[in-house]
């Protein structure tokens, strides 16, 4: 296998070694209570311990050993996970599960991407603790052995989204992505109103430009200043989920560059996954960044917010009283919104206030829909099974519309509903709200 794009192979090996050590400290916190079995959507579909966090952590405890004997099968097991965070939200021991899985994916993918020579070296290093430790400390005498490769910026999402299409029941790529209509924005705030930076996210940009446009309409109607630099990258989660740290780092650094120096009070996205990535994963995996970058990541972590939470908590918009009658709207809690960010009440307040609609709570509203980014590509059948349970819950409350705060969930639910010939619309909370303004 060819080398993945890295600045230096030595650095790659060094990083893998140090990540293995860090992983061990995170794994030990799992007490095998098995509570994750109660919420894991993949386990719910397969009932196999190897598909749930407790089982994966048990396997990861021997990662160094397994990786050498069968790295590909470890990789396959790790990838049978939606990264939805349901397990972390209920874990009594507070195991940093997302951290563990993202690190483990990076380690395994990093290892698989090594050349045979480097694999040999890495194995040797793993077997010799002294060398292992020294590798962590020095700039390395092994440097010359590795080939340098410089990679260009990749937007992970374009090929990823492309492969979503095929024979699936997904909407096609938008004819004109949002960024081609609005490459950059700099709309001043009305007096006394906050200024925000807007991060549309790849799925809104490419598949649901209407979500990005509705979000902008809401912000403008409320007099909010909007800054959006050109050249923003993906938030990085698909690369991270694939264990591809080099590309993740490049995209994150590009985003930092685009946002550097601009003045804004909040960073808003209409995508629960982007928000969670910026707020949670960017700081979590910032060990190797420069102090200035770390500081910017910390600032963005504090400023980043889901747009419906912004409407309710910051703008404190006065919503009309709940109306009864009319088409039924139900709401799906995206895992990253509810479980990572605690955003659950705000979108519901908005939906309950929509004139001419009635709101119905579906059973298991916070159960994962089975999307999980590339999970749906790798494990389409499993993803469909999980999606079917969500679909059944949506149908059970006789909904006409299901709303969500994450475009990835919207795609998954469209697929599940369309597959069953249900005439139920899937819309973003901001789209429904923008219609009332």
């Amino acid at each position, binding site marked *: 296998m060819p080398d993945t794009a890295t600045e230096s192979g030595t650095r790659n090996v060094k990083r893998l070694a140090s990540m293995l050590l860090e992983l061990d400290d995170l794994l030990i916190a799992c007490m*095998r209570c*098995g*509570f994750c*079995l*109660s919420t894991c959507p993949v386990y719910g579909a397969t009932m*196999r*311990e190897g598909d749930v966090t407790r089982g994966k952590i048990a396997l990861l405890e021997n990662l160094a050993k397994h990786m050498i004997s069968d790295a590909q099968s470890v990789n396959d097991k790790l990838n049978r996970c939606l990264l939805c965070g349901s397990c972390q939200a209920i874990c*009594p*021991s*507070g195991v940093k599960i997302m951290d563990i899985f993202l690190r483990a994916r990076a380690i395994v993918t990093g290892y698989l991407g090594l050349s045979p020579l480097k694999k040999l070296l890495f194995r040797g290093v793993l077997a010799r603790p002294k060398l292992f430790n020294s590798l962590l400390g020095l700039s390395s005498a092994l440097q010359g052995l590795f080939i340098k490769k410089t990679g260009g910026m990749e937007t992970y999402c374009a090929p990823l989204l492309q492969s979503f299409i095929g024979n699936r029941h997904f909407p096609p790529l938008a004819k004109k992505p949002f960024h081609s209509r609005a490459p950059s924005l700099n709309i001043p705030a009305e007096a006394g109103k906050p200024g925000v930076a807007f991060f549309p996210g790849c799925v809104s940009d490419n598949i649901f430009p209407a979500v990005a446009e509705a979000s902008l309409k809401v912000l403008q109607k409320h007099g909010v200043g909007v800054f959006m630099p050109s050249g923003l990258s993906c938030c990085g989660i698909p690369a991270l989920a694939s264990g591809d740290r080099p590309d993740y780092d490049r995209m994150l650094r590009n985003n930092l560059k685009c946002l550097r120096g601009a003045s804004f009070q909040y960073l808003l996205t209409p995508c629960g996954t982007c928000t969670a990535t910026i707020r949670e994963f960017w700081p979590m995996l910032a060990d190797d960044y420069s102090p200035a970058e770390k500081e910017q990541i910390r600032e963005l972590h504090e400023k980043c917010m889901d747009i419906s939470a912004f409407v309710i908590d910051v703008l404190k918009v006065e919503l009309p009283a709940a109306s009864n009658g009319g088409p039924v709207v139900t709401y799906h809690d995206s895992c990253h919104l509810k479980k990572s960010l605690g955003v659950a009440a705000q979108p519901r307040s908005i939906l309950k206030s929509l004139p001419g609609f009635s709101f119905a709570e579906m059973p298991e509203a916070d159960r994962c829909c089975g999307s999980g980014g590339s999970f749906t590509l790798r494990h389409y059948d499993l993803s469909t099974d999980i999606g079917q349970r969500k679909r059944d819950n949506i149908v059970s409350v006789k909904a006409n519309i299901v709303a969500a705060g994450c475009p990835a969930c919207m795609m998954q639910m469209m697929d599940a509903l369309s597959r069953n010939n249900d005439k139920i619309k899937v819309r973003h909370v901001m789209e429904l709200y923008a219609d009332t303004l």
Partner: protein
Amino acid sequence: MAVTPALITEFRNIVGKENVLTEEADRQTYAYDAAVLTPVVPALVLVPVTQEALGKTVKLAYDSGLPITVRGSGTNLSGASIPEPGDGVVILTNRLDKILEINEQDLYAVVEPGVVTARFAAAVAARGLFYPPDPGSQSVSTLGGNVALNAGGLRGLKYGVTKDYVMGMEIFDYRGELVKTGSRTVKCVTGYNMAALMSCSEGTLGVFSRLILKLVPPPKASRAMLAEYDDINKASETVAGIIAAHIVPCTLEFLDNNTIKYVEADTKAGLPVQAAAVLLIEVDGGHERMVEEDAAKVVEVCKKCGCTDVRMAKNAEEKLKIWEARRNALPALARARPTTVLEDATVPRSRIPEMVAAVNRIARKYRLEVGTFGHAGDGNLHPTFLCDRRDKEEFRRVEAAVDEIFDVALGLQGTLSGEHGIGMAKAKWMEKETNRATIEFSKNLRRALDPKMLFNAGKKFL
């Protein structure tokens, strides 16, 4: 006998190809349960999805001389679902998860062993009835596992434990034959009371196929209270006082000072970190007025016994808040250090102060961090040692401390385990609590039902 390719083919013919797990990575995920013990990787994991397949699986495994460990969700804390070394196989029952009947007229339900406890309790509640046993793992544990371990929970004092809800069952014996015991009726004297024998048998006598469980009407009202004490003896006197006043709370929980401190450090919920102990008390019943009166009496007893403060929840929200401290006890302790060794030595409720004092003395002796909480109403305490199992020297001290705690519990006329089970963890202690004759009697019984000693052989009795 070894697991041969031919045998694997036979198992595949019974349960289906995809339901025989042979890959090492798959097998490794059935090597442990929630007990802090060394994992044992099974030779095979067999996943029957029908009753018929379950019986045939048991027969083939037994006839082939393979040690059998039945597993539901693998959440027990005693190692009862850790496979046997050698060619031990796991028979996984989590796919046998049908609720076959909920009978509202006759107040019973029939279930397969793999039904998850909380899912069952919710289905029963949706029909206006109540299944009280509520082990801490109920969101994941299976009813088969609950019966095999006789799981307890917070409601034990008033409502009893799992065994009190087992009316009857069907089991596969070692020949794979279906054996029936008990009935759907309240009264039944047909044959031996084998359902009672099977409850708490930890997978050593046979394999559950179906369970008949008792249901009760739910309480109509409840009141929750929190009382603080500057002296643990006063808390203990309160417990005795409440019982003496002929009130049986549905839950009567206790947190010691260490646990309160850990919870407060973790949650910043404003708990009284100076308190020597707090009691969390809930009374319930079929009539609002009666429950009000009982609650008022409980408050009176708390005050009479010298609590420093007592408050009653005025509404559902306050009730949730009161229970938050108890809900957070284990998580707070578990987060403090990497490894959590959760014990459940149980003493007569009047001996709780002595037991807690002994636990703290032992922890000091072995230089260990410990927090004790648990079910004050039934004397079932959870001294919880906090450590890092990677530190071998520290872990040896934990093991020594746990051994000493058993000695103290037995000295106080208590028992090794109130609800977690004997499994592998405490089997060596059985004779100390009972005597040699008891062990022999139990083993004779076992040999009659399991002549080759293949059902979870290393568990319960050695």
